[in-house]
């Protein structure tokens, strides 16, 4: 059965993008965000919930595109 994954893109005032992936296991989460990171730019911050290494459910990646 197919599993649903929710992805939230947050764009701040300076144009920086934060990607939050929900309802997904750690390793899959990284593969989803990795493709997106490559499309957008450099990653400045990567956070996972504490359960990441034990079947985590969400992860967050911030991508910096704007100025300082």
């Amino acid at each position: 059965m197919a599993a649903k994954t929710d992805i939230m893109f947050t764009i701040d005032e300076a144009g920086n993008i934060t990607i939050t992936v929900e309802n997904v296991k750690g390793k899959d989460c990284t593969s989803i965000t990795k493709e997106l990171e490559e499309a957008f730019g450099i990653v400045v911050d990567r956070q996972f919930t504490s359960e990441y290494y034990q079947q985590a459910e969400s992860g967050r990646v911030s991508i910096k595109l704007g100025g300082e």
Partner: protein
Amino acid sequence: MSHFTTVETKINDLVALKRALADLNIQFTEAEVNQECFVKGYQGQTTGALMSIHMSKSYDIGVKVDAKGNVQFVADWWGVETTRGWAEEEFIKKVTRRYSYHKVMAEIQKRGYTLENEEVKEDQTVQIRVRTWS
């Protein structure tokens, strides 16, 4: 002496950049294949670029692409600020913000994600929620 100064960016998608400029009501000209268009600066000086963004009657911002595929903006920023009222940082911020929006939307469409919700918060942060099945 040249008055043109180059600013590096992480912008790498010209389609999303053009959409961002359109949102901001800024006119621009694109060069023909294998040609360059004129970018105007101090006292009528010009330089060549892939695109010329027309900020005022006498000042443009040129768009160049570096070896990594990232956009560089080239301009006489003093002239742009004096005639248009936009400082370099303000231009970069405004363009990057709209660029990021169009870049996210393009990636969502490309990957076939389903758009669930789009919201602009009080602090002007944009939140886009999508769903995918795996």
